């Protein structure tokens, strides 16, 4: 036992199906205040001054260390710093352990600040939302990284917030190649209280919302990899005691009423944007990810993989 509050099977199934885990207001106010104090003041808008220059100076001054990619997460932040305390919070450490396993690896981090209209007017730039994208590059793995998005202050709808599309994480796309899609049914905008965390699967489609308020919006992102050298990577790292043994498949199609909540029910719940045919392939891909995370190569939900794996002709 780790002693950490690990995610249960239902929370893991939600993450597998939808690609995110939202923890509202879990970071204590004192830690939010320490983080914002360490990040420092953001200079006011100056007419004619480019926003990239303002951003660059802000990054240089902020109390965030430069950390080599590939550093053990446990060594990434100076002891006592807000970011060290953040990743050591039991609720955070338990979620990290559940999703990427023991001895995870720091990939990168970034201080995202979204500026209100006055800065864009002063710099002569356009105030627009970020195109929807998947981070990094084409990623064909079943293994995945996580990204923690930390909101140290409240975020209103007017401030934009991170926009993301639940359930898009199993699509293999090339970064902002999907920038053409402005709106997708079921998209969510992070409107939250201070100290909220959004854990996302590295494949989730997302983008920064346009800030139409009069306040800057700050979000800190940390990308974390499972450790391939650990004997226990990200397989069966959640609270597996909450797994319910599957004795038989559920009845499908012809059912006389709603079925009770279960891992299968979660994995088989579609998103509003699912296409009618590829929505079924999303189910197959969720089942494959569940097999990986539970180390159960025979697992199935609603017979989707059993049917296509029945090689009767052989």
């Amino acid at each position: 036992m780790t002693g950490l509050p690990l995610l249960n099977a239902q929370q893991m199934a939600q993450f597998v199906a939808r690609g995110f885990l939202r923890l509202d207001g879990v970071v204590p106010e004192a830690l939010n205040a320490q983080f914002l104090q360490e990040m420092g003041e953001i200079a006011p808008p100056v007419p004619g001054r480019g926003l990239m220059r303002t951003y660059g100076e802000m990054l240089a001054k902020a109390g965030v260390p430069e950390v080599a990619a590939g550093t053990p997460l446990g060594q990434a932040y100076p002891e006592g710093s807000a970011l060290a305390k953040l990743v050591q919070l039991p609720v955070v450490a338990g979620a990290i352990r559940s999703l990427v396993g023991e001895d995870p690896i720091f990939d990168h981090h970034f201080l995202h600040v979204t500026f209100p209209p006055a800065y864009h007017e002063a710099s002569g730039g356009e105030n627009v939302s970020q195109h929807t994208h998947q981070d990094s590059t084409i990623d064909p793995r079943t293994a995945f990284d996580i990204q923690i998005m930390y909101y140290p202050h409240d975020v209103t709808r007017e401030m934009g917030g991170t926009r993301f599309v639940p359930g898009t994480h199993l699509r293999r796309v090339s970064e902002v190649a999907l920038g053409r899609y402005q709106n997708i049914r079921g998209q969510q905008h992070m409107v939250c209280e201070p100290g909220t965390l959004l854990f996302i699967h590295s494949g989730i489609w997302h983008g920064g919302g346009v800030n139409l308020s009069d306040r800057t919006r700050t979000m800190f992102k940390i990308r974390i990899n499972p450790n391939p050298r650990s004997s226990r990577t990200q397989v069966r790292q959640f609270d597996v005691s909450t797994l319910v043994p599957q004795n038989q498949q559920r009845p499908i199609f012809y059912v006389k009423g709603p079925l009770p909540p279960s891992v299968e029910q979660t994995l088989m719940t579609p998103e509003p944007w699912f296409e009618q045919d590829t929505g079924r392939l999303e189910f197959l891909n969720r089942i494959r990810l569940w097999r990986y995370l539970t180390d159960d190569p025979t697992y199935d939900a609603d017979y989707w993989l059993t049917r296509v794996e029945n090689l009767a002709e052989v």
Partner: protein
Amino acid sequence: MQRQKILVLYTANSALDSPVIGWSVYDGTGQTRPMAGDQDEPPYRTGVDALKDGWRLIQAAQLLPHARGAEFDLAYLKYEFFFEQFVEVQP
């Protein structure tokens, strides 16, 4: 003088009368500035509803066979329809 407006609809299957699941607008008149995340409800229920409102269909996604070995791989939205309108603007 005319300028082009573009509407892109993504539908739930290859039929133009199937439900809209994604959408984008690009406005060549400069009168509006559509952008990512600006609307949580689709402008039309189906592609046919856009036709009824005067949009002219100019391109539809092809239906392509699935590559052997990659039948279950998913990437971009599959059913994409481009529409246009020409709008009179002052020179």
